[in-house]
């Protein structure tokens, strides 16, 4: 019942917003729906923690610890972003960005407020669908629902970005679909496999040792390429900086945190099947290669970046690489590090995008050169939080991402992956230098003549809330959340 409600609420909110006449109605409906969605995802987490996996309709919808964690992360980011969006879109309307093409403001509001709940619905379905085919359909639906969010501002560059996003995503996901077909085939000799349940992850995972090995080998490569494209792993990452810099900020924040989690979630599900069928070395090795490549490729782009939203996008590619590396190292430590990192990254990266959005709206540009620094003087709250989140995400202690990255390095050493460990530290240092240099200059630099900005509650409260969470989880992870993360890691390692 909980699972169904979790899906129905955003879907209904999307439908109501599509029919609503005033901006205020849409804002209220969205805020209420995402607030309710967040509460429901908390309830789901509580239920999974107390009674184990939940399922509905004969296992069609299924939630274990991993699904509950991904839902919780999606639900919380969606809530913060919907609060932030209210102020962000009002500011856009006030400053006349909407009127360029003569599109009425209300149509723009309707587009945003009806597509975003659909987008969130698709992401929740990814985590709750047991059937790998339905999961694929949902991941494809996240792309389709967000294409018109990327073109939201209607610039020529947004069209280019949306095109790349849709086409590269489409090709990638068609590989993932092939992988899904092969996974189905690999279990096709098992009894009862030609029913709907034959493609259920929980069923396949139960019989993983009997799956056909050759087929599973190919299925994993295809799924890795496909969901890796969606996660923005190098060399399939090229759509990412464009889409993240063109989409409106709340959508970019959702894309870079919650959607990334969904893609990784798909990958983790396939990883579990493959490692139980073929042993962990084969998928682990492939994942390490893609992880290292993604981290390596993002370093030069972070170092020379001129645009701060693209900087964050390359940073997300780096972190997708880090998480895939953690999965590739595998074992108990690797899986735990992955889940911790996923949680921390979701908080920190969405916070960074929201801060970048504040800076962009205040200075009317997303280039470092044009802002000329001095953000902390003009916008004290945003500036401080921006710098803090940046320090957190490049892995400065005492922030939480230091712990998860340290855990990855430790797991890699324990498992004897010395070359990846050295590369990991090397690339991490490069990113650290590049990101801090740029954002430090942006926030603390000399600065131009901008007067201090007026205080905006819609603008500052969401980032303050996320910043508080980020600061707290650096020192203290609530026991139920830690249990959930441990449970999610156990889904990966089994047992």
């Amino acid at each position, binding site marked *: 019942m909980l699972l169904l409600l979790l899906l129905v609420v955003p879907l209904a909110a999307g439908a109501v917003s599509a029919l609503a006449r005033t901006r205020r109605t849409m804002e209220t409906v969205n805020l209420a729906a995402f607030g309710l969605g967040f509460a429901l995802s908390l309830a789901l987490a509580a239920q999974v923690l107390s009674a184990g996996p939940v399922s509905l309709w004969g296992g069609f919808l299924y939630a274990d610890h991993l699904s509950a964690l991904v839902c919780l992360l999606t639900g919380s980011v969606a809530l913060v972003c919907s609060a932030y969006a209210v102020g962000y879109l009002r500011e856009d309307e006030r400053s006349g960005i909407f009127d360029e093409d003569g599109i009425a403001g209300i149509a723009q509001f309707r587009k945003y407020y009806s597509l975003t709940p659909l987008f969130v619905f698709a992401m929740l379905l990814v985590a709750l669908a047991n059937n790998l085919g339905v999961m694929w359909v949902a991941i494809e639906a996240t792309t389709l629902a967000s294409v018109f969010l990327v073109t939201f501002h209607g610039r020529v560059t947004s*069209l280019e970005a949306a095109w790349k996003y849709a086409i590269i995503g489409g090709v990638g996901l068609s590989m993932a679909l092939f992988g899904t077909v092969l996974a189905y085939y690999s279990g096709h000799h098992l009894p009862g496999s030609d029913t709907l349940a034959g*493609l259920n992850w929980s069923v396949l995972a139960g019989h993983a040792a009997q799956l056909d090995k050759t087929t599973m080998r190919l299925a994993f490569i295809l799924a890795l390429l496909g969901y890796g494209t969606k996660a923005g792993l190098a060399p399939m990452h090229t759509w990412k*900086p464009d889409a993240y810099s063109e989409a409106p900020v709340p959508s970019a924040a959702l894309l870079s945190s919650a959607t990334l989690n969904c893609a990784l979630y798909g990958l983790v599900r396939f990883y579990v099947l493959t490692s139980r069928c073929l042993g962990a070395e084969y998928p682990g090795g492939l994942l390490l290669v893609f992880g290292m490549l993604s981290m390596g490729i993002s370093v030069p782009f972070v170092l020379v970046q001129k645009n701060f939203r693209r900087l964050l996008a390359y940073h997300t590619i780096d972190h997708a690489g880090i998480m895939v590396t953690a999965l590739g190292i595998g074992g108990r430590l690797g899986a735990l590090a992955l889940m911790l990192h996923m949680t921390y990254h979701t908080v920190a990266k969405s916070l960074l995008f929201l801060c970048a959005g504040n800076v962009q709206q205040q200075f009317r540009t997303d280039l470092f050169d044009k802002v000329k620094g001095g953000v902390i003087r003009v916008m004290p709250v945003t500036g401080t939080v921006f710098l803090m989140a940046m320090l957190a995400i490049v892995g400065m202690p005492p922030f939480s991402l230091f712990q998860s990255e340290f855990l990855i390095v430790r797991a890699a050493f324990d498992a004897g992956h010395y070359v990846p460990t050295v590369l990991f530290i090397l690339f991490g240092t490069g990113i650290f230098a590049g990101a801090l240099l740029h954002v430090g200059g942006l926030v603390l630099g000399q600065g131009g003549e901008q007067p201090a900005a007026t205080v905006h509650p819609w603008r500052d409260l969401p980032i303050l809330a996320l910043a508080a969470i980020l600061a707290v989880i650096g020192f203290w992870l609530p026991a139920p959340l830690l249990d959930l993360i441990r449970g999610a890691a156990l889904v990966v390692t089994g047992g």
Partner: protein
Amino acid sequence: MDLLQNPEFGDKMVTLMAALVLVLQIAMVGQRWLVMNIRLFGAQSFLLGAIAAAIAWYNHAPHIYAAAGMTVAVKAILVPILLERLVDRIDIQHEIAPIINVPLSIVISGGLTLVAYTVGESFYHPHAREASLGHNTLAVAISLFLIGFFMMLNRRKALTQVLALLTLENGVFLAAICLTYGMPLIVEIGVFFDVLVAVLVLGILVFRIRESFESMDVSKLRRLRG
């Protein structure tokens, strides 16, 4: 009517139709006219539907009829109509300019087919249950997929890339039909829904890109780099 009950005849029919599907795919690589390309795609999808129906008939698996019907309705009729209307409305150049010239493209497609046969071979398990339909058809499915990829890379124009993406999807559908007699019905419906929405979304994008191209500032396009 004896033939209609004979599985060997069915196998031959399926293989023949799969071969035709492959021929149509290579014809799409060679064809320079956009509208013709769309029609070839429609014909290919129709044959896929026929293959699915034949497999449903000979294996007495009624749920595949639904997949066959949806293929014909969505991919052989609806999508080509939508795409042709789009071509009319945006009044684009009707000739496709591939990056690699046509004769070489066809040679490359032939090479990809060979690769597909070698890959398909490794999946052939004669002892597995009634895999007789699988062998040749799977190789064709993998070739569709590989050639679709090649078409994607070989074409610069937006609409032709959409077509390439759709043939990729056709390859996956054929693989699903011959390996596992289709996916579970609800998954099949979901996939068709996604394909249809994707065509609509991409169609709108093509339309808007075309509109902006008239006043497109090249220096702005260069902003999305690095």
